[in-house]
């Protein structure tokens, strides 16, 4: 009875596999199309009667794309922006989340609500005043302008607070009796325990920062300071008719993140689920 209910009939099974297969195909196909177009010759792309399969494979297109724009610099800027922001968000959120979870101090609730305000204010709605503030500080077109506004995460503070609240308070007692300082207890007892949730949060924060386009778009505007996403849109403007070069450029931008996604898929899934806080 039970096994029959849980195991669908063969025809249903085939339907399920068929639908899922189709969905996976739709998800993956654009990436295959990108790779295929990247290595086609211009002639083949423009010839409406040519086959969709690349013939011959012109792998040189990818090198050509790399050489025709400062991708190295854009990667460097993305690394600085992506990693810098993420590490900053993890540190400030761990500190705040921990303090909000375990310390009692006057003004705690107000400060906590202040941090939560960050969740209520979508960044995209304050792009104009943020540029005004950065302009006043003379931080437009600088690394500090890219990084400093992105060093805190309300979501991170909230998640870490919840995590630390769930830990038994006895944990710190032994260390406290040994006379360890509060900061040491935080660093040596609590931070190591939070590694899984830091990994999950860090992963989605990293992807968000790495893929962030709107913020760098309004804060920096020079080839030297552009991050990869900005660079790609500049590239699009210059090579809008060379589809093979455009797809090579997209490939260059996608490949490293694809590797990250494959290696860290569990953390990404966890991070997405965690991020949907109630």
């Amino acid at each position: 009875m039970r096994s029959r209910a849980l195991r669908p009939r063969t025809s249903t099974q085939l339907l399920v596999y068929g639908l899922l297969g189709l969905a996976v195909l739709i998800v993956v196909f654009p990436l295959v199309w990108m790779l295929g177009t990247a290595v086609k010759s211009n002639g083949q792309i423009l010839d409406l009667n040519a086959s969709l399969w690349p013939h011959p494979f012109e792998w040189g297109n990818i090198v050509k794309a790399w050489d025709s724009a400062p991708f190295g610099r854009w990667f460097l800027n993305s690394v600085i922006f992506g990693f810098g922001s993420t590490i900053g968000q993890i540190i400030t959120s761990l500190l705040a989340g921990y303090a909000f979870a375990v310390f009692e101090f006057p003004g705690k609730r107000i400060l906590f609500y202040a941090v939560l305000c960050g969740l209520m204010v979508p960044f995209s709605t304050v792009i104009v005043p943020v540029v005004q503030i950065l302009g006043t500080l003379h931080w437009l077109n600088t690394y500090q302008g890219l990084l400093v506004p992105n060093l805190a995460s309300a979501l991170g503070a909230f998640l870490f607070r919840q995590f630390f609240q769930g830990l038994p308070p006895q944990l710190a007692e032994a260390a406290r009796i040994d006379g360890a300082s509060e900061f040491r207890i935080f660093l040596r007892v609590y931070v190591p325990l939070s590694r899984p949730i830091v990994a999950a949060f860090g992963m989605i924060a990293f992807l968000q920062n790495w893929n962030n386009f709107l913020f760098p778009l309004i804060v920096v505007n020079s080839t030297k300071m552009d991050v990869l996403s900005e660079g790609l849109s500049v590239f699009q403007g210059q090579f809008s008719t060379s589809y093979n070069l455009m797809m090579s450029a997209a490939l260059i931008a996608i490949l490293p993140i694809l590797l990250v996604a494959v290696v860290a898929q569990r953390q990404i899934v966890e991070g997405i689920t965690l991020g949907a806080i109630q």
Partner: protein
Amino acid sequence: MPSTSSGRQQGATTGSVPALGGGRRQRRPGWLPHRKLGRPLLLPYLFVAPAVVFTALFSILPLVILFRRSFLAGGIFATHLSWVGLQNYTNTLSQGGGQALKVTAIFTVAFIVLTMGFGLGIALLLDMKLPGVKRLRAPFIIPLAMPSVATALIWATLFAPQIGLINRILSVLGIPQADFTSSPSLAMVMILSFGTWQFFGQNVILYLAALKNLPVEIMEQSSIDGAGAWQRFWHIRLPLLQRNTILILVITTLTGLQTFNQIYVLTNGGPNGATTTALFYVYNQGFVQFNTGQADAMAVILFLISLVITVGQVGILGRRAHREI
């Protein structure tokens, strides 16, 4: 002295405030380890300072500036500003802003229906107890993780006139070729299809997690009672998923409202404003046309819409949580 005051405060907090996280996680009563004397008083403030200062400087302060400037006329870095009342708002609504709000509504509603529909559908399939199905979850996170500017470029070539794949398929089928960037409705189709492809994986993951948390006993009981698959879904699973659905709806709505990259890359708001959403309008007025006042007015409207959605969610879910307890 410090210990008494902080002790009183903690008592008050434990008693009256249901924990913020969904109202379910109550603070344990015995959880008072930090009242001891001799703790450094300053330390908690040092811990929270970075998060508080950065949030204040780059979320709260900008919001205050935004509201103020939405009633003032003057360029982005102007120092001489004059009070114009609601003029920025009326200008915004009459000069394309009204249409931008309409475009935003159409895009967001379609985005919600498509991503939540496909999300729930695929999640239900992935939740079936069939061999190998679990492994098929991974591909759905790919579009989410990729830089959307790069994947939007793929879309641009897929939908390109004549030599793009879509137009090649159309011509094979004998359907006239379509120019997706010069027709208002086709431009919307293009950004919607990309937005759905890019984001629906998130709803797959969220619905799948929700389905995994459903009580197994109820499902088994109902199948023994002879409820069909459709009945089980409609009368048992869907009501049980209501809470998650509201949450997913809110996240999806906020994501839809903040859609920017695909529009920038694929249509640049065109043709003729047909894909200019509220956020794209803010960007365009603020940083292309340099109408700071109008950009700010629209940003305030967008902020208020987001706020109503967030607060509404807290209201609905909070009330429900109380009833459940």
